[in-house]
């Protein structure tokens, strides 16, 4: 079984954890104000909104590299 797909998928899924948890000490600030939002709130919102595309990319990776391993029950 090819393991590259799941690994890439995990990599994509790690991004929200990095940006929304581990990067927090670096973004705990008000400036610059973007779209009217203080920077901290903007940063969090940005990565919340970007998570579905990231997960979709993970989904495609699993599908592409790992045909036949997933979803045998559908």
């Amino acid at each position, binding site marked *: 079984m090819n393991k590259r797909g799941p690994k890439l998928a995990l990599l994509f*899924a790690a991004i929200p954890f990095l940006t929304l948890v581990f990067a927090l000490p670096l973004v705990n600030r008000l400036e610059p104000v973007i779209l009217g*939002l203080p920077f*901290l709130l903007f940063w969090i*919102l940005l990565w919340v909104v970007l*998570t579905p595309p990231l*997960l979709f990319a*993970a989904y495609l990776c699993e599908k592409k590299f790992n045909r036949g391993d997933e*979803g045998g*029950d559908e």
Partner: protein
Amino acid sequence: MNVALVIIFATIAISAGVGIFAGRRQKMNLENWTVAGRRFGLILIWLLMAGEIYTTFTFLGASGWAFSKGAPAFYILIYGTLAYTLSFFILPALWRVGKRYGLHTQPDYFIKRYDSRSLGVCVALLGVFSIIPYLQLQLAGLGFIVEVASNGAVPSHTAILLAFVLTCAFVYTSGLRGAAWVAIIKDVMMLAAVGVVGIGVPILYFGSPGKMFEALMAKMPEHLVFPGSTPDMNVGWVMSTALLTGLGFYMWPHVFGSAFSAKSDKIIKRNAIIMPFYQIPILLIFFVGFTAFLVIPELQNGDMAFLELVNRTYPPWFMGFVGAAGAVTAMVPSAILVLFASTLLAKNVYQAGFRPQAKEETVLRLSRILVLVITTFALFFAILFPNELVNLLILGYDGVCQFFPGVVLGLFWKRVTKSGVFTGLGVGIAIVAFLILTGRDPFLGMNAGFVGLLVNGFLTVAVSLNTKPRRLDTL
């Protein structure tokens, strides 16, 4: 009779009607009742999961936190997103195991994976213990919203009693399917209420959300960065709490169990991808809390921020609409909570613990009777001790998070053993209970549940490596 009252009562009655109707023409067996026969497609699963996540606590609590604590409230946006990201990997694997072995509940999983009925009974009891305060909080929230929204015309106890007798009725008849159908009404109303108020109030009072933030940054800039207006909720607290609650979210027995109701593992996976979009309304709820912070700074109780602002800004009929939305928002999660608490007791404590030979019909009949018993019990608590159980809820949340190593390692690591899970879980729970009950939460700047989880995970792995795993031919 005022118009707000009519809207609230009509909504509660129609919701219960839809819930009861949902189960019509269904031949009820245990699988159909608890996990809707594993037949939900993408939309119903999305609504159901959103129904579990958006509770009255989100409604009142998120705006209340934005009002009284400020930036630490942002952890709510974060933890949901983390939970969905994890669920992308965990839930489909779990679903496949559930499908193969006909599992309905979380303890079912522990019993099957670790071949241990006693572990199942422990997990079931811990689950029920955590669910009761959660349920009670929903009851209290419902009473509170309806009482305020009807301007005192409907006393809180009357609202709780009425809504819960009806919720009980549709859980009894339709099981999980009833909850999913009512979730449709709930979502539409809640999104409408949050949209109108969240976009409306910053515009009405300041011209735009951007101008509202400008005013807030001029008045009190530190409210918008960690630790906001709190003494101890700094970045470390936000990080550990968001991680813990993100990991723990799907460990709630009712959320865990509803994953089994999907039609396929692919449905669950796709659902995980779109779930984070559901976080966006929370931003609007924050707008309401922040606006209240500027407009009604004299407000004492943060939980009142949303309702008080609506009361000052909108006509009475809209207040009724918000009250009605709040009531259904409490009914949906409560229905799912009651359903899983009773199944846990009937199937995993009674049947697995004492009567392995009990028939499925007996378990279903007992579950249904327990719906009535548990609801009565929670009602009794909600009316007699409205505030006592909030601390138990924190304990419950941190408690269910301790299931994480047993669930996830069980899915992805063959070496994990029953002794490992028992040890980790036991010590994790003990640490959490000790830290919270002795007032040591946060501990070293970290959430107490997170401390418990670290030790728990370490012990689960360490003990597993030193004990013999079970034969692996079954999972």
